[in-house]
């Protein structure tokens, strides 16, 4: 396999994974992670090195997620996308977890997914990249193919919307 993709898979597969998890409000996205890296493998010749590999992979992941959302919409899934049954089992990172820990983390995770899932897609994208993944404005702009100003203003509005959601609880 292309050596860069192999290296990036081990470095960034988790980043791609939780980006997709939040964007699609579902932890059942392993197949999409695979699709992202297969697309990267096939398109590696087009990677020019202008953006960091992580930014490039997350941009691919975004397109894969948008396609997935379209597919699900076509299938009239709307009610399913944010249903709790879709936020199934969470893969927890290494370490010892008691059943209580797991339950607590799972609950927190479900709540987070529900919350993010209520926002419109553009808000969700910027909240995940800037807020959860803590990427810079520049990186977020590169992934979303927006101007940096648009990232700042949309993030500002997205946080307001999130606050509203939290306040409504």
């Amino acid at each position, binding site marked *: 396999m292309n050596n860069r993709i192999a*290296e990036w898979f081990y470095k960034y597969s988790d980043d791609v994974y939780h980006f997709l998890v939040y964007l699609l409000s579902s932890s059942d996205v392993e197949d999409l992670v*695979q699709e992202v890296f297969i697309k990267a493998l096939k398109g590696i010749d087009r990677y020019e090195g202008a953006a960091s590999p992580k930014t490039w992979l997350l941009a691919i992941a975004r397109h894969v997620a948008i396609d997935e959302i379209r597919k699900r919409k076509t299938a009239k899934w709307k009610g399913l996308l944010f249903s709790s049954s879709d936020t199934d089992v969470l893969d927890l990172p290494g370490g010892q977890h008691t059943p209580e820990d797991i339950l607590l983390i799972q609950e927190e995770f479900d709540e987070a997914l529900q919350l993010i899932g209520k926002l419109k897609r553009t808000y969700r994208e910027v909240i995940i990249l800037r807020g*959860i993944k803590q990427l810079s404005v520049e990186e977020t702009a590169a992934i979303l193919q927006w101007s940096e100003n648009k990232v700042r203003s949309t993030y500002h509005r997205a946080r307001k919307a999130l606050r509203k959601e939290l306040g409504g609880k």
Partner: protein
Amino acid sequence: MSDQDYKQIDELLARMPKPSLSDQKKQQIYRELLNTHVKAELNRGRWEMMKHYLISACGIGALAIIAFVVISSGVMDDYRSKSGMHSPEEREEWQGNLVEDQEDNEDNGFFPIDVDQLKAYVGTYIGGASDVFAIIEQLPGADTYQGGGLDLRDQILGVTYLHANVEASPEAKAFWYEEGRMEKVFLHNAIYLTLLVPNAVGYHFEVGLYSFSVSRDEMVDILQTELTDFPQGNEIWEREVMDPFLDQNVEKINELVQSEEFRASFFAEHPIMVVKVTNQE
């Protein structure tokens, strides 16, 4: 919204769980990526071979035209006596033989090895490089040796079939990147080297960017279960024991190598990895 509110939201977002893929899932995805890459390489290899054959066909065509012109000009006999060129009938016969030879040499689902010749190397010490090399020469993959080599340091028997920095020939690519071929050859050769070079502590193969490693102990554990009458103690060094053992198990080894189920479980434990990660393409 006050600055304090924004700060709270930022803190809340930063604290949100960051789930990760399980190692098992990663391994599974990695395996799929590997398969995708192997298929792509195979297609590329096929295309290169086709180009190669196309160019050869054009060459043959051009030769045929020249021959026709020469025959027509009535000087063929004289030309043949001087140059030793074959008549079209002779060439046809020769090409027919070539096709038959190629068909004979095709991989019919198993690797045609001469077990009787391999028996001569029962009990080979890893220090005996020439004997180890002679075994490798008789096992599948040896024909594709390109910039490869043998590495016997630390009692690990390492064979590099295709060097990562050497562009492989279309034939070598067609051989190694056939679906499932790398797994079959690695497994097959690891089995025979376990049986023939008992004092190695492990076996390691490289093909381009791919590598595979397995320890001798792991191989012995598997073979003790899978093969009939696996030699006990020092019996593995004795030809009297090993000759009948090899005869008895040669078919069984082929079955293991060809079994998709067995390979899947074997390589799940000992995956083929990318060997050299560099920043160069």
